[in-house]
């Protein structure tokens, strides 16, 4: 067979050139290999791509194995060639110009799919910079800036000013308020603290005391805010000392400056008679005991503060020599001699701070029995009220007198004589018997009060002899007793914390002969272990609030400050008070 082949080449400016060739053979092989009759050089053509056969004058094209053809855009392995057919072989298109039976085949071949520019394609496929991957620093900067500003600036501020915004984000995992929180709340505040507005009531304003006083109405102020109109005191806010956002345990200022800043020169700044103080170790006044002082004329107690170092004497009106009770030989007790210790009478309160009160019934009566007849030790008079004692005695002796048979030579016959059962006594006899009983009761009472029992501990004075005939009982008075439960009420001493010490380390009771002795040690005793922040290294650093409270103005409550007069009015008040002092 023979085949006329025209190789077409299109020019860039238009127009087509062609190179014609006549190929012949029993069949015509098409492929990249130079062995082929129809040689197509492009590497995308197989070595042996297809073969054109002449079968009884009809022309067929068949793909070789592994290759395929596209005949008029349809994939085919074999097809008869007809005029106008377009067969794609790799990048070439073969167009059938003429395929008449018995005539030569006439085809054109054109490289229609040029191989692209390798370099350009390689560049297109390659992404060689991070910028080309689509990440933009500028875009991400905007995204981050916007998100964080919205979430952590715009939202919290909006929530502060708009309850609607607040409610919307109330249950969000990061609420506006949580995001701004600077630290854990004190545990007592946790139930409302996530609402910042509860305390921070105004924007760009420090937390006001009124916010605290919403709840803490009953907290005492430090001093009369009008009398002590001191900038250091009245401009001090609750939050100056109570530092919130510092953990569950809270944080309260404890440094010496808390008190010392004002109290170091309080006398010159206020004209007060309070003593200056700055540091427990080296600038603290002597301890002053608050003691009861008895005014015998007015029969009232007043309190008085006296320096302990001056060995002040207290008038409690009770006679109690500690030394007699603490002798090493022991005291006479119902069961025999007993050596007493401090704890027999002084027992700590449940809180461990102070001591339980001393009472006759619990601490004294076991030894100091209020017997009035040696023969009948079980009968005692009641403690506490002299009239009751006289009643008790009168009843007791009246009963004996009426029964008769009482062995007393001075007694009338009706009292002495034994009576038979059922024997009546006359009116006269009954009167005699009662007279005797009263006299007896008064005599025994006098003996009890003045000589034998009561006066052991108490100051007893006979104020009236009475008149037996008129029925007036004689009268005695016992000076009222007032035992101090604390001598240093302005400080807080916790006994429990000092358990490693012996009682006698501080209280020299064994040598105390008088109840007037105040067995509270002076400051130097405490200073053996405690010192201020300017302390020697081997002492316990103790600041003012370790012993003293700040909120101590009894008549002034934090809640009242809401209604305090304006500052100008206060100044006038303070001025007036100031004049009064001078």
């Amino acid at each position, binding site marked *: 067979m023979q085949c006329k082949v025209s190789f077409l080449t299109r020019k860039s400016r238009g127009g087509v050139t062609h190179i014609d060739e006549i190929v012949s053979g029993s069949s015509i092989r098409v492929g990249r290999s130079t062995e082929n009759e129809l040689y197509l050089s492009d590497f995308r053509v197989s070595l042996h791509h297809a073969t054109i056969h002449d079968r009884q004058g009809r022309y067929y094209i068949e793909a070789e194995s592994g290759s395929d053809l596209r005949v008029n855009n349809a994939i085919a392995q074999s097809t008869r060639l007809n005029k106008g057919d377009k067969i794609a072989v790799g990048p070439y298109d073969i167009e059938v110009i003429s395929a008449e039976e018995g005539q030569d085949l006439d085809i054109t071949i054109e490289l229609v799919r040029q191989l692209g520019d390798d370099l350009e394609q*390689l560049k297109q496929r390659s992404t060689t910079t991070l910028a080309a991957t689509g990440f933009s620093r500028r875009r991400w900067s905007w995204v981050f800036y916007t998100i964080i500003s919205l979430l952590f600036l715009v939202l919290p501020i909006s929530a502060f000013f708009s309850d609607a915004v607040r409610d919307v984000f109330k249950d969000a995992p990061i609420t506006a308020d949580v995001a701004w929180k600077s630290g854990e709340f004190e545990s007592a505040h946790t139930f409302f603290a996530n609402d910042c507005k509860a305390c921070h009531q105004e924007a760009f304003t420090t937390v006001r005391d009124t916010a605290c006083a919403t709840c803490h109405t009953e907290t005492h102020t430090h001093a009369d805010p009008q009398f002590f109109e001191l900038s250091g005191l009245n401009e001090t806010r609750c939050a100056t000392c109570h530092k919130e956002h510092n953990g569950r345990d809270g944080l309260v200022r404890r440094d010496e400056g808390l008190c010392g800043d004002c109290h170091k020169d309080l006398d010159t700044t206020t004209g007060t008679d309070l003593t200056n103080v700055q540091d427990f170790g080296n600038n603290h006044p002597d301890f002053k005991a608050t003691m009861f002082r008895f005014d015998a004329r007015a029969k009232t107690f007043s309190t008085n503060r006296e320096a302990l170092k001056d060995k002040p004497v207290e008038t409690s009106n009770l006679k109690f020599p500690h030394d007699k009770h603490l002798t090493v030989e022991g005291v006479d007790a119902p069961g025999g001699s007993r050596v007493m210790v401090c704890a027999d009478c002084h027992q700590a309160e449940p809180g461990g701070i102070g001591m339980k009160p001393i009472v006759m019934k619990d601490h004294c009566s076991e030894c100091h029995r209020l017997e009035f007849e040696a023969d009948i030790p079980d009968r005692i008079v009641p403690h506490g009220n002299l009239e009751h004692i006289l009643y008790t005695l009168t009843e007791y002796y009246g009963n004996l007198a009426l029964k008769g048979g009482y062995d007393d030579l001075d007694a009338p016959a009706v009292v002495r004589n034994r009576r038979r059962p059922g024997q009546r006594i006359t009116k006269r006899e009954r009167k005699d018997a009662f007279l005797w009983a009263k006299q007896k009761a008064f005599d025994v009472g006098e003996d009890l009060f003045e000589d034998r029992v009561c006066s052991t501990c108490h100051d007893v004075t006979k104020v009236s002899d009475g008149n037996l005939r008129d029925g007036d009982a004689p009268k005695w008075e016992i000076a009222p007793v007032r035992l101090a439960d604390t001598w240093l009420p302005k400080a807080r001493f916790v006994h429990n914390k000092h358990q490693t010490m012996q009682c006698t380390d501080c209280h020299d009771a064994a040598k105390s002969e008088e109840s007037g002795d105040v067995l509270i040690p002076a400051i130097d005793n405490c200073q053996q272990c405690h010192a201020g922040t300017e302390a020697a290294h081997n002492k316990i650093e103790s600041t003012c609030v370790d012993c003293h409270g700040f909120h101590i103005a009894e008549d002034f409550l934090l809640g009242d400050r809401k209604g305090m007069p304006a500052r100008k009015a206060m100044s006038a008040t303070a001025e007036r008070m100031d004049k009064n002092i001078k």
Partner: protein
Amino acid sequence: MMHQSLFVYSGYRYFKLCMVLIITSVIAYAIHTPVDGPNGGTWLGYTLGGLGAAIILLLMWFGMRKRSYKSDMGQVQGWLSAHVYLGVALIIIATLHAGFQIGWNIHTLAYILMFIVIFSGIFGVYAYLRYPALMTKNRRGNTLELMLVEMSELDRECREAAAQLTDEINKCILDCSENTKIGGSVWQQLSGKDSNCATLAAFNKAGELNKLLPKEMAGDASHLMTLLGKKCELVQRARRDVQYKAMMDIWLYFHVPLSFALLAALTAHVVSIFFYW
């Protein structure tokens, strides 16, 4: 050398400045004993906070300064030197400002962002010290552009060499030239690898296929393998070049956007402090 100048700029001027800042801050922190423990709310806390915020603004202004060629606010090199040293000093100053307190809040968020920004910057310094030299060595006087040109030349040569070899080998070569790419995704650029490298695949496959060729084609086959081997090496070098460049750039993708995140967080932090004064 640029990196030497960065550190020793003007007789270690900024190094000295930062050492003074750091030492002063540490000493102040050590002797300051506020009643509520070290925190941002004491006088020292506010001082260190103000200093830290000023430093952050100054560091961020570097981005403006280096783009402004007409500026007469000192040399960019001096700014960069100060940028690096002040950035490192900020770690100490901000930590002391915070008094080592952290929590789930905007304040700690700003602190963490600041740390990421600073450490990405420190990585940037490291990258600028390390990679330019490696890059020069790897390029052997070429540029990436020239490497790509050389690659496409090799593709053409490969095709010519394979023209008379089997169809399978040709297909291999076609794949190699059509599918090889340099770089790619962020991860591919950073790793300098392509697990589906078409060139390497073609090299391996052509090697296998060549064994099946008749002896008379051995010459062509050997020539093809030489060309493919050359391309493999070239592709590897080009990818490494892209990798070095990516390493020198990647930190900026954290450093810059997160510094703006930090700016927002810092603003929120400062506003929140004074808002709830």
